[in-house]
């Protein structure tokens, strides 16, 4: 699962921009044959302890994609940033029920639809399919939210399945957030 955009997990986590030549070879040509124009295509390497993964980020038709691969170039997941209102109503109700039952207060910071390739399509054609049909069946929702309990207030990254059933969460630190002086 990837947490992009200025959230860091721990001290030994590092995300850096890389040229395409350092991207896993098998995945390099995954992004050049969509029928829509790809904008802002960028490649990143993420190190988290011993784990290295790769990420391609781009924009197509106003949607922000981030596609994560393991070190061998095998697809881990595709994520598309969405707004809260784009969560289907019954799913949203289930997600809200979870948050209301477990936390005093919740504020959503970032929501992504997530697609994991459970099909027998190749990674390349799966990516192609999702980019051409972004409203097709996603498998999870990933939500970064600020939550409040009696004891604490922190940022967490939650994973829900496509029906809004809670699966897991992990803590996200936001240390890099105060890099400018306010």
């Amino acid at each position, binding site marked *: 699962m990837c947490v*992009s955009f*200025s959230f*860091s997990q721990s001290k030994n986590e*590092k995300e850096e921009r890389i040229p395409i030549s350092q991207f896993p070879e098998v995945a390099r040509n995954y992004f050049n044959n969509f029928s829509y124009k790809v904008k802002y295509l960028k490649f*990143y390497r993420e190190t988290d302890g011993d784990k290295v993964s790769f990420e391609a980020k781009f924009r197509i038709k106003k949607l922000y994609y981030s596609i994560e691969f393991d070190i061998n170039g095998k697809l881990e997941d595709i994520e598309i940033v969405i707004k809260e209102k784009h969560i289907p109503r019954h799913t949203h109700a289930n997600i809200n029920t979870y948050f209301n039952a477990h936390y005093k207060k919740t504020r959503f910071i970032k929501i992504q639809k997530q697609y994991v390739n459970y099909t027998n399509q190749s990674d390349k054609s799966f990516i192609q399919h999702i980019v051409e049909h972004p409203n097709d069946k996603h498998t999870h929702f990933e939500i970064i939210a600020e939550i409040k309990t009696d004891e*604490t207030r922190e940022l967490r990254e939650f994973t829900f399945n496509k029906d809004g059933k809670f699966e897991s969460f992990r803590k996200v630190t936001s240390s890099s957030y105060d890099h400018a002086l*306010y």
Partner: protein
Amino acid sequence: MHYIKPLIFISFCLCCFQLIAQNGFVSLGETAFSLNHKVSKTYSVNFAMRSRYFLFEDHKPKYKQQQVDIYHFSTLNLNYNHKLSLGVYHRNRDWFDTGSNETRFTQQFSYTKQKLGVRYGHRFRTEQRILNTKTIFRQRYRFAVDFPLNGEKLDIGETYLVNAIESLLSVSKPDNPETDIRISTQIGWQFTEDLKLQTGLEHRLEAFNLKAKHNLFVLTTAVLKI
């Protein structure tokens, strides 16, 4: 695309040097040391010392101390991206014979919004500047954009840029209202988890509604988290 961010920075610097060549231009340096401490999840404090000195005046370079400041800010994190702060500030110019000392009270509200590694910050301030002969009431609004120069996340050892534009309105009894604009660009380094250094330039266009003055500030700041 890789070169866009440095280019913006360099062109801003060039604009500033262009200004130096003009008449009546004053350049000052400001060096600050700031200590931040997080008391709890919702409350944090900041203590800082700052020194300001002339670097260029009357058409020639020079070094002359203008003032020293000490200040404190108490910040209440309303939530993850809204903050309320109260500040108290003391400026000493007596020691250097450069004008009146000042005590200042500041109330501040700030809001930040993050999108794809770029953070946008809005800051509203009201200040009461108590000088020997008058009290100035000042309103300020600042819009700032900051982002890491490599990737979308600031990791240790990485560099970032902060650009800001601020407008100020000062009102005091005997004087006419004064409006200022400040534009700054700074580059910073996150050396360790707790230490960062930041340096850059700030152009201040002062009292442009009355008799405009141009000042260029060279800023350096060290920020330590304890």
